[in-house]
């Protein structure tokens, strides 16, 4: 089990001022696995995701990827992950395609055709040449999803990815998640609703 796990999170403790937000969270995630992180508002779901990304250093505990602590080789770890925060992380003045060109281009060499294909898959091909400022919240979320797709990372860390998506968008996201996991990818999903996938989903309940 441990040898299979790519992502190992051990005994994470995080304090926010006087508040003990994360009290010894541990998890394992292997190739082809998906973990749903659930819990009430303020339970520390997003904080945990930021710790796992390496954006937030925990007071205690360690995160390792492929057996190496992420602090020891952050560049390799960051190259292997795609993170989508609760904000779509788009520049309002750039078009959807330009946003992807810059964001994905920092992670891997990518041709515009591949970015167009990712936008098409996310159902926003028609928005490619529109500045992000004129897109609706749901469309922006789909462009962010296209970014995650185009990065082709092994590990997806998605914070509330279902927010603002319509029924067909939620359905699409679930299918993409299944495909990612079937292809040997790993995914951590923070969401407060139940994930509707074609398989049982492992859940980690925080704040209980």
């Amino acid at each position, binding site marked *: 089990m441990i040898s299979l796990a790519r992502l190992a999170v051990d005994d994470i403790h995080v304090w926010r001022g006087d508040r003990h937000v994360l009290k010894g969270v541990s998890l394992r995630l292997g190739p082809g696995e998906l973990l749903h992180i659930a819990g009430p508002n303020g339970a520390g779901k997003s904080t945990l995701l930021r710790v796992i990304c390496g954006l937030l250093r925990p007071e205690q505990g360690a995160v390792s990827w492929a057996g190496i602590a992420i602090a020891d080789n952050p560049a390799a770890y960051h190259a292997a992950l795609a*993170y989508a925060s609760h904000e779509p*992380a788009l*520049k309002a003045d750039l078009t959807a395609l330009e946003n992807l060109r810059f964001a994905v281009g*920092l992670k891997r060499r990518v041709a515009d055709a591949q970015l167009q294909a990712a936008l098409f898959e996310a159902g926003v091909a028609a928005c490619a040449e529109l500045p992000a400022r004129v897109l609706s919240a749901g469309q922006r979320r789909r462009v962010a999803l296209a970014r995650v797709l185009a990065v082709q990372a092994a590990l997806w860390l998605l914070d509330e990815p279902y927010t603002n998506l319509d029924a067909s968008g939620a359905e699409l996201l679930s299918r993409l998640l299944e495909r990612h996991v079937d292809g040997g990818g790993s995914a951590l999903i923070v969401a407060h609703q139940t994930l509707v996938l074609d398989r049982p989903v492992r859940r980690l309940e925080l704040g209980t």
Partner: protein
Amino acid sequence: MSVSLWSAMTLVLRRDLALSLRRPDQLAQPLVFFLIVTTLFPLSLSPESSLLRQMAPGVLWVAALLAALLSMDGLFRGDAEDGTLEQLVLSGQALGAIVIAKTLAHWLVSGVALVLISPLVATALAIPVAAFPVMMLSLGLGTLTLSWLGAIGAGLTVGLRRGSVLLSLIVLPLAMPLLIFGANATDRAIGGESAAGALYFLGSLCLLTTTLAPLAAAAALRITLE
């Protein structure tokens, strides 16, 4: 398949230049401020050219410093607010290199633009044409150094709601040597003397900040993001 540091920096530089050029109003504001502030002096004191020429270096440099401060707050703030800063940090590229690219882009649209319009201001302040090359060189070195100092300050204050005043309080004391040597270089050039000493000092300050500021600003950003 991986992206080299150089192409990553080029990409960030191109992104920031594209963003600046799409908001020409924000680009123009510090320049207009620079023009207006320097125009206030001849209006309020005296239009007599001998007096103006005496004050010109100080007026020019103080105005340039304040104009540069105006645009500094935006260096990382936009990226921090829309979440793209996190994506930059998680891009797998060295944060220091990204800071270098962003700061250079910022300098190209603020500092270089200020250097280019400085002859206009200099003419209004009765600075002789012979002093223009030294004045422009010193302003170029000075604004680049300011951009590096600003990057540290902006990195430290980007997480604060009203960080721009604090940013000024952090950067202005650090910028005093620039003001002294910059104004001195311009002053000597106006008097027809050699400004080499002051220019060397500006050059070494520029080199010092170029090497250290990206590391300091990257560390500041990491702390801010936590």
